[in-house]
């Protein structure tokens, strides 16, 4: 098959699967789940063939033309897209497989798997998109799939609220995103990712407004502050969804998008992006410390790691000079150089990749734990699972160590690349990110210790059992990836990557020397040591009993945003709507229309006749008019 056809196949198969499920398999849950999973499998094969088979190409087709505006849909398949596509396809398949077991007894399985398929379609669309309009289209569609899947348990009020919140908050981000796209189109005459670099290199004016408005989209989708509030709530969705959409792929789309529009970046914009990412990383890590719901801990951890990636992009990996020809008014050209800021694409994408592996692993692991404990999600009601669920325990341990940055696991390499970048660029950010790293190992060890050790603290945990092979198999696969995912081989062949993604990997900054190991080990040891000191496997939160002030403070910090938004919605937005509605009803309906009716009554006999209330009068006027007109034309008068 040709490259384009293969890519279209990978894009459209999930759409086909979703359509078939929606039309014919609504009541056949088992069949729907097999169809969707089989689709995910062939998509994975196609994606890996594309990524590793040396297919790199561009293709596009006009989709809509009005006047001088033409919107195209196209594919830009470079190393960056190949990397992202591979991640989405591999994690996607793992999650589908896991869901076969996890959702086996769910009454609405067909809807769930249909939703997963529509998500795969939308997400692959973002990855392949060759222009910003197309990206926006699929951007909105992943928002829809996310809405659908968060709302899976839609008879629960909390799930209904969470899905609504996710969609609306994302739309707030998209508001900026769309304006940014329009500005980009107005300024450069194109939003095509292949044409933009040429126009920029041609010396077009750059502004910070365009990249920052586009960044708004990433703030919404990747849940950066202040639009991060939807992601913890999104944990109302089934756990496999949290793993796929709200940890590994969709929420990382914001970072992918930033890497796509790297050419538009200017120093000021990168600076803002760096700070938003850093603050989010720190804030979310602090919030994660006081969560008792296993999924919420992981959700805040995801926020924090996404903050890392955004910060990495903002830090910029290097600054390059590019030779250009500068035109003069009289038509002569002169050679010159311009400075181009280059975002930290390498470091950000590297962490995105390893994070996708270990966070998907952690979420699926937590799913396995929840499934094993009969839908118990509170870590203080678990305990003693290490022996009852050995595979889940072993794989989760790998995940915890990977995110905490144990040397030679994947998270160690990617986090170090970011820290190294920060060290070179900005000491304050470096300090904050180091502190965040300590917090990360602190809350992850806390989670790990309380969940798996000690005595079982509820009936659910008492009767826990290891999950079936469809669930443990993806865990093992992801655990392997979490170990080997860090060997990118930027200077040679990568362990699992080969040379497929060299364009991305060669941008990773590489710290040298033994100091790196020591730094990472110290971070891990401090975090873990504190966690061991504070928390014992038990029914109560160690921090709450030992340092209540800190616990209260962190809880307050976590709630402040939700409370602020709730206040805004209830007290500002809804009241404003009520006031406007009141004015609408009273002023317009009451005064103006009566006044207008009066005026009409004065001027038109017909209207006055209507005002007396008989509708039929209107019919007679109409007929009379018709008779008169034809009579007049016929020369009767």
């Amino acid at each position, binding site marked *: 098959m040709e490259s384009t056809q293969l890519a279209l196949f990978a894009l459209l198969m999930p759409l086909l699967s979703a359509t078939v499920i929606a039309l014919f398999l609504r009541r056949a849950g088992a069949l729907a789940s097999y169809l969707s999973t089989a689709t995910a499998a062939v998509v994975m094969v196609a994606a890996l063939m594309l990524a590793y088979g040396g297919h790199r190409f561009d293709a596009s087709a006009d989709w*809509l033309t009005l006047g*001088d505006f033409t919107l195209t849909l196209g594919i830009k398949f470079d190393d960056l897209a190949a990397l992202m596509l591979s991640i989405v396809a591999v994690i996607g398949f793992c999650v589908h497989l896991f869901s076969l077991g996890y959702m086996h007894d769910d009454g609405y399985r067909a809807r769930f798997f249909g939703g997963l398929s529509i998500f795969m379609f939308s997400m692959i669309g973002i990855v392949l998109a060759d222009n910003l309009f197309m990206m926006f289209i699929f951007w909105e569609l992943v928002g829809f799939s996310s809405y659908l899947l968060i709302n899976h348990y839609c*008879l*629960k009020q909390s799930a209904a609220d969470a*899905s609504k919140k996710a969609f609306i908050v994302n739309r707030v981000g998209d508001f900026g995103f769309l304006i940014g796209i329009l500005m980009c189109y107005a300024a450069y*005459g194109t939003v095509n990712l292949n044409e933009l670099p040429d126009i920029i290199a041609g010396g077009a004016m750059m502004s910070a407004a365009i990249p920052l408005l586009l960044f708004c989209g990433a703030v919404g989708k990747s849940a950066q502050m202040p639009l991060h509030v939807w992601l913890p709530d999104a944990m109302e969705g089934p756990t496999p969804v949290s793993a796929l959409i709200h940890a590994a792929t969709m929420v990382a789309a914001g970072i992918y998008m930033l890497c796509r529009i790297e050419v538009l970046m200017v120093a000021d914009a990168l600076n803002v992006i760096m700070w938003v990412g850093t603050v989010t990383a720190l804030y979310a890590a602090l919030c994660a410390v006081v969560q008792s719901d296993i999924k919420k801990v992981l959700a805040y951890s995801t926020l924090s790691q996404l903050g890392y990636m955004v910060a990495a992009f903002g830090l910029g990996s290097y600054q390059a000079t590019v030779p250009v020809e500068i035109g003069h008014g009289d038509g002569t050209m002169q050679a010159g150089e311009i400075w181009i800021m280059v975002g930290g694409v390498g470091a950000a994408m590297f962490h995105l990749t390893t994070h996708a592996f270990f966070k998907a692993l952690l979420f699926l692991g937590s799913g396995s734990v929840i499934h094993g404990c009969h839908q118990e999600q509170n870590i203080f009601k678990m305990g003693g699972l290490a022996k009852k669920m050995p595979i889940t325990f072993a794989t989760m341990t790998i995940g915890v160590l990977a995110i905490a940055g144990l040397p030679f696991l994947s998270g160690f390499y990617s986090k170090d690349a970011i820290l190294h970048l920060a060290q070179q660029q900005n000491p304050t950010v470096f300090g904050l990110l180091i502190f965040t790293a300590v917090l990360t190992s602190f809350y992850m060890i806390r989670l790990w210790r309380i969940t798996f050790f000690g005595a079982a603290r509820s009936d659910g945990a008492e009767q826990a059992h290891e999950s079936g092979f469809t669930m443990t198999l993806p865990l093992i696969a992801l655990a392997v990836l979490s170990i080997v995912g860090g060997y990118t081989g930027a200077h040679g062949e990568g362990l699992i990557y080969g040379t497929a993604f060299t364009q991305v990997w060669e941008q990773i900054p590489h710290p040298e020397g033994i100091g790196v190991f020591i730094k990472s080990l110290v971070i891990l040891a401090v975090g873990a040591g504190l966690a061991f000191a504070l928390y014992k496997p038990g029914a109560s939160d160690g921090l709450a009993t030992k340092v209540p002030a800190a616990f209260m403070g962190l809880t307050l910090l976590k709630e402040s945003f939700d409370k602020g938004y709730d206040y805004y919605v209830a007290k500002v937005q809804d009241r404003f709507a009520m006031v406007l509605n009141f004015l609408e009803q009273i002023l*317009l309906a009451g005064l103006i229309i009566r006044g207008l009716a009066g005026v009409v009554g004065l001027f038109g006999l017909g209207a006055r006749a209507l005002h007396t209330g008989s509708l039929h009068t209107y019919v007679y006027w*109409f007929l009379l008019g018709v008779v008169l007109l034809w009579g007049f034309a016929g020369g009767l008068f």
Partner: protein
Amino acid sequence: MDLLLIAIVAPLVLALAMVLGLPKALARNLAYLGFALPAVIGIILWCQFDAAAKESTYAFLTTYDTGLTGLGINLTLGLNGISLPLFVMAGIVGLAAGLYALQSAAERLNHYVTLLLVMQGGLMGVFASVDVFFFYFFHELALIPTFIMVGIWGGRDRNYAAMKMTIYLTVGAMLSLIGLIAIYYTSGAQTFDMIALREAIAAEGLSTVAQRNIFGLLMFGFGILVSLWPLHTWAPLGYGAAPSSVAMLHAGVLKKFGLYGLIQVALPLLPEGAAHWALILATLGVVGNVLIIGVVAMAQRDLKQLVGYSSVMHMGYAFLGVACLSVVGVGGVVFMMVAHGFSAALLFLLATSIHHRTQTFDLDEMGGLVKSAPVLSAFFVAATLASIGLPGFANFWGELTIFVAAWQVFPTLTVIAIAGVVISAIYGLRAAAKVFFGPPTEAFAKVLQEQPATDLTWSERLPALLLLVALLAFGFWPKLMTDSINESVAEIYPAVETTVPADVARN
């Protein structure tokens, strides 16, 4: 045989036959035919349009002498790239509304269907007329049954609603009639034929003053008919009271008469007048319709009122697009009109189907309907997402192209208009959540106990599916529509100069 004439006359003839006392069962079966024919003809003509011979953008031109030739009036029928999509939309929405009406348990169903057939005939006539007089005539022909049906078969406050609708829409129609007659006289062409008018004005050109005054009349006249803020108050009230099929046909199709008039008649004939009023039109549309009505919609508790307000709100985007005075803007408006026709009709249909199951339109007395009516909830969520402009549905392309066009002319207003995208998501998803998700409220639980809700029946599903498929088809393949729109609009509207953005030219 002239298919256009059949599409207009068939529903009218059937309506006449029903009045003359056809046996009830036969009459109803024939009514299906009356609703189906225009839709089928619309699709046939669509397929033939590209290959058809065209004169001044119009294809399928035929002229009938109706005895008014002395006044420069002939029944000239034809379709161009602007009217074709609307003609097809009118046919499909009419079929859906007819199917929905025929399965409803309305009292005196035969009379109801008769009036609906008259309305349908008028609607097809509006978009098939090349003659401005008949364009107006058919609008009135469709409007009268609307008033009567609201007054007789309407819901709460039907008398007040019918009266208010009548007054507003009559005034709007009168103002636009005065404007049209003024064009007739000042152009010196002494004809109502669109093609002749265009040629005459292209040769002579109207004075700036005349253009400004006439455009003002048309803008407010047509504006009232399309619920331009602040002359919109008839709409939510009227739609709230109107029986479902009437709301579907009026909000979906008949309301587009005003926009269609602006695009097909006012803008091409009065370019200077349009330029004079553009900023005012755009401001009223964006600040009034989109922002104010959008916020007002958030405060609604009544589902049907909410759908009515959302319909008013979305007209604001259309006004913004019209005010751009460009090919992209006008093309976007045509797309938006068609898309909104389908989505508004679908929402009104589903709102009534929800009412059958909940016995109320009060959003605070529902909840959890998804459990007993999953298909209904899927349709409603799809319709809501379509109306809030989710890609994949036709409405998205309309909004996007309007935004692209408007950014060049009114950047600040465009930002406000885009904020409307967030506002509509808030009220749309709130409504969906209140009706379908979460646990049922106490009041609704009682209703459910007395009368368990069933899922969407096939007789309801069929018309809904028709509309949804149309939304998705145009949503996935916008080219279906834009190719023909583009050709006509580009010919009617003077080509917009393509300027290289200044920033690119600079270093």
